[in-house]
């Protein structure tokens, strides 16, 4: 009892101090997260000579310049990398969507023999680590002469079992009555899928699209294995190329300009769809 009284008496002040400590701690981590972003932006607007003359790097600049952005696009094929990544991301996501929607609809809508076994097998595929299958995929794509082609980049990246699972769960929530009503009206299965199921599950589909776009945009390992022609590099490989032989190793401001250009599209996408991205990742994304 005395204990409780003590807590009551001292709690208002202690509470305030505690809150302050929490905010300071959270603030420190926020700075840790944001500082690299600030530093890349800052360095990207410093001129080459200014950057190299600062033995002690300045924390701000009074004469920002855009020249690094110009050289990022002219001295190295950054525009080409971005275009490649855009083509790769959009086509992979589009193919993925068709395959995923069809498979999810089959599992959720149709009652066919072997459905539960097939679904179990699909789920089991989620356990297969990427590293185990990449060796054969590399050999397969090489033997098919698909190295340095978009097809070679896209084909193995299309299917994601997890997205099929996510969408199937969502499709399964649509009441059967809707389906029977549509059947009475003479709606075909495909039309029902396109006009009813997809519109109802639009939020999940958008989440899947965003997660896939993030995954594709940041993909590094597969493109590195399958492309050695600069004309087919994606941004991750491009940035590695820039680092190792692009501007000459010393032109760090130009490198940072390239880093900013590469990072901004996804940051904007995230800020627009913040809630969807976070909910989607919460449902089972990990950083791959």
């Amino acid at each position, binding site marked *: 009892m005395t204990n409780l009284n003590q807590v009551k008496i001292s709690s208002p002040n202690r509470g305030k101090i505690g809150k302050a400590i929490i905010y300071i701690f959270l603030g420190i981590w926020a700075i840790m997260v944001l500082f690299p972003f600030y530093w890349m932006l800052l360095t990207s607007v410093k001129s080459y000579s200014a950057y190299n003359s600062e033995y002690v790097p300045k924390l701000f600049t009074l004469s920002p310049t855009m020249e690094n952005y110009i050289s990022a696009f002219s001295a190295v094929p950054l525009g080409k990398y971005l275009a490649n990544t855009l083509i790769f991301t959009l086509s992979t996501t589009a193919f993925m969507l068709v*395959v995923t929607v069809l498979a999810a609809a089959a599992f959720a809508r149709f009652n066919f023999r072997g459905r539960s076994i097939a679904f179990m097998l699909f789920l089991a595929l989620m356990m297969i680590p990427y590293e185990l299958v990449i060796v054969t995929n590399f050999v397969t794509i090489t033997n098919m002469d698909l190295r340095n082609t978009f097809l070679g980049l896209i084909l193995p990246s299309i299917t994601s079992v997890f997205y099929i699972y996510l969408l199937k769960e969502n499709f399964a929530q649509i009441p059967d009555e809707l389906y029977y009503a549509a059947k009475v009206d003479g709606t075909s299965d495909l039309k029902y899928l396109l006009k009813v199921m997809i519109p109802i599950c639009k939020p999940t589909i958008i989440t899947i699209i965003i997660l896939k776009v993030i995954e594709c945009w940041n993909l590094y390992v597969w493109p590195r294995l399958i492309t050695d022609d600069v004309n087919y590099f994606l941004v991750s490989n491009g940035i590695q190329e820039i680092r190792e032989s692009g501007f000459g190793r010393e032109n760090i401001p130009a490198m940072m300009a390239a880093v900013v250009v590469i990072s901004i599209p996804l940051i904007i*996408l995230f800020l627009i769809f913040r809630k969807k991205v976070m909910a989607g990742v919460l449902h089972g994304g990990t950083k791959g």
Partner: protein
Amino acid sequence: MEKRNNKAWFYLLPAMLFLGFFMVYPLIDVFIYSLEEGYNSASQTFFGVGSYNYSFVLHDPYFLQAVKNTFILVIFTVPLSTGIALLISTGLNSIKALKNLFQTIYFLPYVTNTLAVGLVFMILFNKTEYTDGLVNLIIRMFGGNSIDFIDGPYWAKMFVLCFYTIWVVMPFKVLTLTSALASVNPQYYDAAKVDGTSKFRTFTKITLPMISPMLFYLIITGFIGAFKAYSDAVALFGTNLNAAEMNTIVGYIYDMLYGDSGGYPSFASAAAIILFAIVLTITCINSLISKRYVHY
């Protein structure tokens, strides 16, 4: 009925084709590759069948270095990142103002390109003839000696790698734990308050057991993820990780497959299977331990 049956399989066909060709077949094939001795990727011939590939990989100093690096990385980053994430999400859950802003900021590393941001970390830690780099200047401010974290001593490079890895994996952990903490039934806390339980005791006796399944999930995925570390190391030290003594097991697999030392899918397969065996063992041990501590 028969017609509907066919229709369903028709809908499943594309997914089955892709998965069969790029997941199931490779999964079987990787074991075959790993047993084919002296495989030549140009002529696609091999001498015999046996365990030579495994013994080669297990005796390769580069592989042993990669295993050592990976284990150090795992041992430091998994507990540290989970612990810090727990602190951060507990903090996040106890505030109202600015909570959304903090959450958004903390999530940013998830959506950024690991390779690109890794360059920024390299610049912050690197020591060149032009500048000591920001981190070294801070160290000097506190009276320490400047160290080259990127081309310098082993422990310094390992420190940067661990630091960057934690920075990269934090968003997922903070997000998951924050939502787990928020879903704890507030009645438990009210009951504890009535009883006058101290905050620390409430945390260890109510919060931790309630979120222990999520915590355990994070530790398992954390272990798996850390064992597969690769692109973080490339981002910091460049593609020639063997020269930097900073290669990881996954990096070793890819180097065996392609690049200057590449062209050995058999060795790559053997290394991949060894990695998989390690991950499986650790996951099983984790599950056994968790049975004692996790409250479902």
